[in-house]
């Protein structure tokens, strides 16, 4: 992972990607016990393709290919890990990216989404595995409920949060 993150930081330094943060299961591992995952989700600001308003992943693929990395479907393999580069798709993900926490992995600087943003994104996405992850965050007391409520309210997710709490019982109440 160290060499992988060094490569991603180099990409950022070279302007191929903008600000980035680790999300998904690896991001959640920052706060929780480790749980198996097949890939690393990197949320990153991406450059626009010329004068078009469309975002392009092509510069990332070209850069990494030039540095000896492989593409495997939707993933880019850097070192041992398959990575998925995801541009923020809405205001919640943009905020998650902007407010990410700085940390280090084996001495390499990186950024991870906050626990509250990871939970809010999981509430919004709402798949069974997202619900399982939210329960892990709650069981391990890894979220600031006041901050979580602010994020949920700010992005219109209170109704979905109420549905989640109704489904999973009184232990999820704050």
């Amino acid at each position, binding site marked *: 992972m160290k060499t992988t993150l060094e490569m991603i930081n180099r990409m950022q330094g070279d302007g191929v990607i903008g600000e980035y943060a680790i999300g998904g299961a690896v991001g959640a*591992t*920052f706060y929780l*016990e*480790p749980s198996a*995952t097949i890939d690393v989700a990197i949320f990153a600001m991406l450059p626009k393709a010329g004068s078009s308003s469309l975002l392009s992943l092509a510069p990332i693929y070209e850069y990494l290919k030039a540095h000896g990395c492989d593409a495997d479907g939707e993933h880019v393999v850097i070192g041992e890990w398959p990575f998925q580069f995801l541009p923020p*798709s809405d205001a919640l993900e943009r905020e998650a990216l902007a407010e990410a926490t700085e940390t280090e992995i084996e001495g390499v600087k990186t950024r991870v989404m906050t626990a509250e943003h*990871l939970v809010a994104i999981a509430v*919004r*996405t709402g798949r069974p*595995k997202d619900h399982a992850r939210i329960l892990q965050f709650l069981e391990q007391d890894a979220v600031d409920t006041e901050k979580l409520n602010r994020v949920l309210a700010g992005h219109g997710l209170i109704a979905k949060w109420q549905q989640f709490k109704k489904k999973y019982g009184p232990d999820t109440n704050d």
Partner: protein
Amino acid sequence: MTRQERRKRLAGLSFSEKIKILEKLRRRSLAIAASGLRRRRAGGVRNADENSRPA
């Protein structure tokens, strides 16, 4: 050590240590997949979540 205590201890590790555990879990999953032990499941219905955007 209870399961809860074990989970708490794992959650309290540094991010670097947790990433090393993730790497071991990943290598183990790949080894199991390569051994064919999951062949029956792999032939079944693919989990709809596998191709979804991560949260």
